[in-house]
């Protein structure tokens, strides 16, 4: 009994520290435009978008036990859908919503096939999907612009039924939009992962047989996880399109899927904070190495191998003994 009381007290304390760090991060993100230039804000937005894509990967990998090489496909669906809608002349919100919806539809359609399979078969099917989207983006010239892609995507104003109309053309304005939308998205995902549905995902990761023998359909639950992950990938793409104002087929290449996988592994795939930490580290390391050497791919690869070997459970896994009070 005393052990449980001690654990509860320590867990409450570590929760308070986590909330403190989170609060500090949110405040930092909101005051950043005051003392940063446009390029730094652009970099932070790229990091945040990578975070969303990493959450998309981590929901499947860390929480449901499924490795997907196709999240770039949903990212591209979101980006192209948002781009097309914005080019048609709408405001910003319909574009972003269109991106999420198209990615959701694509993930449901693909999910019906691939959630019947696990492990290597699931990974291969998702990889094939990503390459199919890449091929479609390249070849469907009339719709996607082919190799040239979509360009001149406007950073349309944010308005809502004439209640407000906010100009998004400045980097700082769009930055705040990306931050607010991403924080809401991350919060929603946090709620999902702590809900009964989130626990079911983790149960599937641990033992899908046991999940089916407690009366829960593994296939249906996997499909829900896959769809949510696809929506987060689509959201990342939908935020990316107005940022870059250009979308090319490279958005859907499987290498774009590899980035969030590496970021998730670096940060820690069994931790909610892992994708954030991993995305920041990966983005910064990549950005620095690219500036320093022509052989950046080789150096980056070596650094990542060293980081993964040093932090076996990711950075958050290494920090867990200091953050968590669970009695062992």
């Amino acid at each position, binding site marked *: *009994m005393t*052990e*449980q009381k001690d*654990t*509860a007290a320590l867990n409450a304390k570590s929760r308070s520290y986590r909330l403190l760090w989170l609060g500090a991060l949110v405040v930092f993100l909101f005051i950043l435009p005051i003392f940063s230039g446009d390029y730094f804000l652009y970099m932070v937005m790229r990091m945040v978008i990578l975070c969303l894509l990493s959450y998309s990967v981590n929901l499947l990998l860390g929480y449901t036990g499924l490795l997907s090489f196709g999240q770039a496909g949903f990212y591209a669906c979101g980006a192209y859908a948002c781009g097309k809608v914005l080019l048609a002349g709408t405001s910003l919100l319909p574009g972003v919503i269109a991106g999420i919806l198209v990615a959701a539809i694509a993930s449901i359609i693909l999910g019906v096939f691939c959630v019947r399979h696990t492990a290597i078969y699931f990974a291969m099917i998702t990889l094939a999907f990503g390459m199919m989207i890449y091929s479609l983006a390249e070849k469907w010239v009339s719709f996607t612009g082919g190799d040239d892609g979509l360009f001149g995507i406007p950073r349309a104003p944010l308005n809502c039924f004439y209640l407000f109309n906010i100009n998004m053309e400045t980097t700082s304005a769009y930055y705040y939009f990306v931050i607010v939308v991403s924080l809401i998205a991350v919060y929603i995902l946090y*709620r*999902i992962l*702590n*809900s*009964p*549905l*989130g*626990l*079911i995902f*983790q*149960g599937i*990761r*641990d*033992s899908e*047989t*046991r*999940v*089916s*023998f*407690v*009366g*829960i*359909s*593994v296939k249906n*639950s996997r499909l829900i996880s896959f769809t949510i992950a696809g929506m987060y990938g689509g959201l990342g793409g939908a935020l990316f399109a107005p940022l870059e104002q250009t979308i090319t087929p490279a958005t859907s290449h499987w290498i774009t899927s590899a980035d969030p996988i590496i970021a998730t592994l670096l940060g820690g795939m*069994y931790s909610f904070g892992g994708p954030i930490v991993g995305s920041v580290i990966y983005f910064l390391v990549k950005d620095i190495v690219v500036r320093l050497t022509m052989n950046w791919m080789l150096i980056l690869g070596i650094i990542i191998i060293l980081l993964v070997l040093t932090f076996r459970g990711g950075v958050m896994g290494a920090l867990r003994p200091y953050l968590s009070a*669970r*009695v*062992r």
Partner: protein
Amino acid sequence: MDEVILKTEGLTKLFGKFIAVDEVDLEFRSGIITSIIGPNGAGKTTTINLLTGGLHADKGKVVFKDRDITAFPPHRRVREGITRSFQIMNIFSMLTVLQNIQMPLFPLLGKQLKWFNAVTQYRDVMEEAERILRELALWDKRERLAGELSHGDQRALEMGMAIASRPEICFLDEPSSGMNPVERATILKLIRRLAEEGSTTFVIVEHDMDVIFSLSDRIFVMDKGKVLAEGKPDEIRHNEKVVEIYLGEEV
């Protein structure tokens, strides 16, 4: 009470050319603790897998309350009221003890699609989980990871997960395996109590003859995929075929 709730008709399972379960006809009556015994490789666990949906039958039927459930997958059979524990431990080792017990409560209490509120906010789930864990003497260990429990506690947890769904019939595959005498006594007492309450019918696969003969109202003996004999414990104890093939000498 004493009505047939689950039966099989000509149930058969092949692995290649090997006949693991050979046209087996079984009947399980409500309120009666039934055991299935037999030497290793007799087909006991394969039969349980066929009854609970872990394997698809090649021939024959599984009928539950006059309904053919042969094609039902495991999760549907659980919703019908058929659950099981596993011979080889099958718990959520990376989740806490509490989370393990909460999992079967989600479909029972209609919570499996709830996605916004934390699990802790569902009072019915939390209260029922506490009741079950206290019954299993695991409440004090609720925050521990299930994978870190002792073998006996893991077995108790697994059984808890099997009964948490309030099944009509529950298959326990070697429930007391690896337990010390105190743990075994707790589990057997729980099985007996639930069986007497009439809420759950138990079917037990065991190698421990003391457990079998002290607990069972009826025993099926399997050998080489077939039902060799069935009857009350005393009848089985004195059955010559059973003694010769399985028990070795009269018990």
